[in-house]
């Protein structure tokens, strides 16, 4: 029982990071029909910005994180929107998918070429200790990950529902024609969405890198899992992406312990297939109607 609790808790901690990436993924889809297949690389990259800040520019960790966050907002938010998505958007979804796949490869190879192909040690914000939680051993890093991710999700949810700007963003995502006739500044709302996605990716990167180390290829599993989490939860639902992320984190961990570590990578995919067969709109998703 303690082992089970331990596995679930650490699954939730990893899953909460997946959830951040999945939520960003979902938000981009809602606001601009962007399917970002570089989302995994978006989570991989900010850790390297931190390392550059620390080792090249000699910043302390916190300063390097702020530096990395700002760089992420500019590169993964503004530049990504302006130079990748906007030129491709008029051509439809498929060209965007291809462009983001290409971008992902470019980011991965660039990091490998110019930084290192080796996994880089990445500093944690907390000393690595193990705490006792009802008999289960939980690492401080897991607790930090879970707490920070949940705080970010709650803050995001509050922003989207509790502020007029957030509700304007919802209007832009749910019914852009209406948002336009009401005078909502749609371009700005879409930009905010890209900035939020970049920030979510940066936070996910800061949290996951102490565990997996910073490596150019880290984006592959993360991007895949975020994509699956978004679909499992319902592509058009933030709550769905949250549930999907947590679920995959937990199921993945349980499978590694109780089934076989060799098959753990297959588990999210099996989950995806089952969900698509049984509930194609996702766990919390609503079927998307197409207006005539």
């Amino acid at each position, binding site marked *: 029982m303690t082992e089970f609790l331990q596995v679930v808790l650490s699954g939730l901690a990893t899953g909460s990071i997946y959830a951040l990436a999945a939520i960003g993924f979902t938000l981009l889809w809602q606001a601009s029909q962007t399917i970002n297949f570089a989302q995994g690389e978006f989570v991989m990259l900010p850790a390297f910005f931190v390392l550059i800040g620390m080792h090249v520019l000699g910043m302390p960790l916190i300063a390097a994180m702020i530096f990395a966050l700002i760089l992420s907002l500019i590169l993964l938010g503004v530049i990504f929107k302006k130079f990748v998505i906007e030129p491709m958007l008029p051509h439809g979804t498929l060209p965007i998918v291809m462009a983001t796949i290409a971008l992902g490869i470019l980011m991965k190879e660039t990091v490998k070429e110019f930084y290192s192909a080796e996994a880089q040690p990445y500093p944690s914000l907390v000393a690595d200790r193990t705490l006792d939680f009802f008999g289960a051993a939980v690492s401080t890093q897991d607790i930090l990950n879970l707490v920070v991710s949940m705080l970010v999700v709650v803050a995001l949810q509050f922003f989207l529902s509790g502020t*007029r700007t957030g*509700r*304007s963003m*919802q*209007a832009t995502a*749910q*019914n852009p*024609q*209406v*948002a*336009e*006739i*009401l*005078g*909502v*500044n749609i371009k700005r709302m879409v930009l905010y969405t890209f900035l939020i996605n970049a920030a979510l990716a940066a936070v996910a990167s800061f949290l996951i890198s102490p565990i997996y180390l910073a490596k150019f290829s880290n984006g592959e599993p993360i991007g895949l899992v975020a994509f699956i989490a978004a679909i499992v939860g319902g592509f058009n639902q933030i709550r769905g992406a949250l549930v999907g992320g947590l679920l995959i984190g937990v199921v993945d961990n349980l499978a590694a312990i109780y089934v076989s570590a060799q098959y753990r990578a297959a588990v999210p995919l099996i989950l995806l297939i089952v969900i698509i067969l049984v509930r194609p709109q996702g766990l919390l998703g609503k079927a998307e109607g197409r*207006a005539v």
Partner: protein
Amino acid sequence: MLELKDLYGGYGKMTILNGVSFKIDKATITTVIGPNGAGKSTVFKAIFGLLNIHSGQILLDGKDVTRQTPAQMISHGVTYVPQGRNIVPQLSVFHNLELGGITARDQGMVRRRMEMVMDQFPILREKRNQQAIALSGGQQKQLEIARALLLDPKLILIDEPSIGLSPNLVQEVFQTLIRLRDNGVTVLMVEQNAKSALAMSDYGIVLELGQTRMHDRADKLLADPRVGQLFLGGSTQKSVA
């Protein structure tokens, strides 16, 4: 108060408006009728800054408002209720209503206006905390009209308000528009349901092939045999048979 001068425009290279001209007076109801594809809805989009205008002019109280953005038109006191469902489905009724005032600087004023508008449409107060998608078709239309009234507009453009509504509700919407006119608001409406719309309007405009064919008092248009012919799907011009 609103004047269109020889307006040409369309989507991309496709031209839909081929020289629309008309002028409507303050505190009147004018209904635009015409066959499918005549450009009725397109005229509204042109006025509200949603259309590519090639040439011509739109004047509001004598001021040139051609090619302004929707947000600018709202600031001039113009609102637009397009046809179909125009709600944000997952936001509450209250927050849908609030979006009608998103461009306003004075949010205290928006709160007061929301209370007033909910007095006029009690069903919205009753359902204020429900998701807008839970409203019936008629209630959604009321929400859209209420939202359009939020900033106390002087001109309201309303496209096909009767679609999907029961005859009783259509009459209710028409009564709302008449009340607005009596309070000094100018109403410009497109309506399939041409006969009953003209019956409650002051003026009527017949559009065909993106041009103004007729513009007269509503009762005169109703009595005009050419208009009758139009309702039967014919043309106002004599056929070359």
